[in-house]
C-alpha cells in the first residue's frame, strides 16, 4: 500500500520519495478524518437495513441515509431531499438519466467535451434508434451556447452537457444553457462529476432537470457513492427494479421518490462517509474551496509560463477552470513524463486519454493524450511549486 512515501530505485540507490497526489479529478485523496470516523462508527454500531424494518438498527441506518440526503439537499439548495437518488457513482446516475428519458425517435444534443460515461450510453442508445448530435467545443474546451443551439431541432428531448471537462477543467456556463433549455422546453442533464463540491451549484438558480454527481471526488466521500437529482415529475424509467422495502404487497416497482430508483440494499456505510464529506464541504464553503483551487491554478500557470517546452491545454483562467491542468512536454510522450514523475518524484498524475477520446480529438492530443494534474482542497501551495519544479527539470534534462 502506498500512503505517504514510495521507494525509488535510481542511480543513487534506493531512497524514499514523498508522494504527491495529483489525481483528485479521478478520486480525491486524502479524505477528512470525520469521513473515516463515520464509516468506522457505522461498521461498529450501526448495520441495519434502511427501510426494511421498524427495529432500531433499521431506523438508525435509515437515519444515516436521510442525514446524507438532507446534507446534499442543503448543498445544492434542493427543497425536497427525496428528489435525490443514491447511486454507486456518477456513471450509474448518468445511465439512469439517459436510458430513463430517451427512447426511439428522440433527439439528444451532447458536446464533444463529454466523458465516456455519457458518450458510451449515448452511442448504445444510437443503435436503438435515438438520434444524437454532438455540439463542438472550441480548442480551449469551452462549449458556447451557440454551438448547442445550432444542433437543436423540434424533436430534441434532452441536452446532456458536462459542467466541467475532466481533461481541461474548463467550466461550462450551465446557467446560460439552463435558461435556453427552459425557453425551448427541453430537459437538461448536467454531469457534475468534476464540479460537485468545488464549484458552487444551486439548482434553484440553474434550470437543471437532472444533475448527476459523484461522491468520491469533490465531496470527499468514499468510492462507491454518487447520486442523481431529479427535479420533478415521473418521466424517468428506472434502470433497475427490485426490493425497496416499500409496497411489499405488490410486484410492481413503486412510483415514488426515492424508492423508485433505489432498488436493493444501499451502500449505507459509504453513504455514512459521504454525509460527513458533504458536511465538511458545507462547513468549509464551496466558494472558499473554489478560491483555493483557483489560487493554486494561478501559481501553477505562473510557474510554467514563458517556457515554450510546455504545451498547456484548457482555458487557463482562474475561476473558469477547476483544479485541473492538462499539459504536454514537447518531444516527450505523456506516458514517459508520467512515469518519470511517478518513479522519480513521487508525483501521481493521470496520463493518456482520461476516458474522453472525443475531447482529446478536439484539443488535438488524440491518441497520445496528455499528462493531467488535478489537485484538491488538501493540496498546498508548496506542493504545486514542487510539481512545477519537477516538470521544469524534466523538460530541461531531456532537452540536452
Amino acid at each position: 500500500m502506498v500512503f505517504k512515501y514510495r521507494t525509488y530505485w535510481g542511480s543513487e540507490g534506493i531512497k524514499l520519495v514523498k508522494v504527491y497526489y495529483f489525481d483528485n479529478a479521478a478520486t480525491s485523496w486524502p479524505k477528512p478524518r470525520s469521513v473515516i470516523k463515520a464509516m468506522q462508527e457505522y461498521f461498529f454500531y450501526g448495520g441495519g437495513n434502511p427501510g426494511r424494518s421498524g427495529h432500531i438498527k433499521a431506523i438508525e441506518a435509515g437515519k444515516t441515509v436521510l442525514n446524507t440526503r438532507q446534507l446534499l439537499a442543503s448543498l445544492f439548495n434542493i427543497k425536497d431531499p427525496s428528489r435525490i437518488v443514491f447511486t454507486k457513482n456518477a456513471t450509474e446516475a448518468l445511465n439512469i438519466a439517459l436510458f430513463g428519458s430517451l427512447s426511439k425517435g428522440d433527439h439528444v444534443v451532447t458536446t464533444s467535451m463529454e466523458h465516456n460515461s455519457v458518450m458510451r450510453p449515448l452511442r448504445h442508445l444510437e443503435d436503438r434508434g435515438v438520434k444524437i448530435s454532438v455540439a463542438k467545443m472550441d480548442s480551449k474546451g469551452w462549449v458556447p451556447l451557440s454551438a448547442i443551439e445550432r444542433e437543436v431541432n423540434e424533436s430534441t428531448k434532452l441536452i446532456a452537457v458536462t459542467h466541467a471537462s475532466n481533461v481541461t477543467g474548463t467550466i461550462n456556463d450551465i446557467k446560460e444553457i439552463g435558461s435556453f433549455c427552459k425557453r425551448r422546453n427541453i430537459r437538461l442533464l448536467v454531469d457534475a462529476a468534476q464540479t460537485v463540491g468545488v464549484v458552487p451549484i444551486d439548482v434553484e438558480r440553474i434550470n437543471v432537470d437532472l444533475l448527476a454527481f459523484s461522491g468520491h471526488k469533490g465531496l470527499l466521500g468514499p468510492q462507491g457513492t454518487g447520486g442523481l437529482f431529479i427535479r420533478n415529475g415521473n418521466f424517468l424509467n428506472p434502470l433497475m427494479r427490485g426490493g425497496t422495502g416499500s409496497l411489499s404487497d405488490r410486484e410492481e416497482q413503486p412510483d415514488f421518490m426515492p424508492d423508485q430508483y433505489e432498488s436493493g440494499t444501499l451502500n449505507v456505510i459509504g453513504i455514512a462517509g459521504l454525509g460527513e464529506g458533504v458536511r465538511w464541504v458545507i462547513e468549509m464553503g464551496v466558494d472558499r474551496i473554489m478560491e483555493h483551487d483557483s489560487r493554486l491554478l494561478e501559481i501553477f500557470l505562473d510557474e510554467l509560463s514563458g517556457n515554450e517546452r510546455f504545451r498547456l491545454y484548457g482555458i487557463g483562467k482562474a475561476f473558469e477552470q477547476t483544479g485541473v491542468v492538462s499539459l504536454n512536454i514537447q518531444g516527450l510522450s505523456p506516458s514517459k513524463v508520467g512515469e518519470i514523475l511517478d518513479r522519480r518524484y513521487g508525483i501521481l498524475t493521470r496520463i493518456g486519454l482520461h476516458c474522453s477520446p472525443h475531447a482529446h480529438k478536439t484539443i488535438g492530443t488524440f491518441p497520445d493524450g496528455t499528462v493531467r494534474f488535478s489537485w484538491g482542497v488538501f493540496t498546498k501551495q508548496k506542493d504545486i511549486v514542487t510539481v512545477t519544479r519537477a516538470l521544469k527539470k524534466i523538460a530541461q534534462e531531456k532537452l540536452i
Partner: protein
Amino acid sequence: MFKRRKIEDIESLEGVVTFFGSHHALRSEEVLKKYNVRAVLIPGPREISPNCGVALRFDYSKKDEVKKILDEFFVHYEDIHYYPVN
C-alpha cells in the same frame, strides 16, 4: 449518531401516520421535531397499512398541524389513522 434513546411515553400518542417509503417516515419525525411536535417512530402496524415498515405516532389532537408541516416539507404520507396503543 448512536446516542442512547430515551424511553418515550407513547400511551398519550394516539394518532399514527403511515407512509409509502421509509425516507418519508424518517424525515417526518425530523421535521416535526423542528416544530416541537412530539413524534415517535414505531414499527408499522400491519392492520392499518401493508406499506412501509416504519410509522409515526403523534398526538392526534394536533392532526391538522401535523398535516400542514408534512406538506410543507414535501413529506409524502399514505394516511393518518386514529390508533391508540391499547
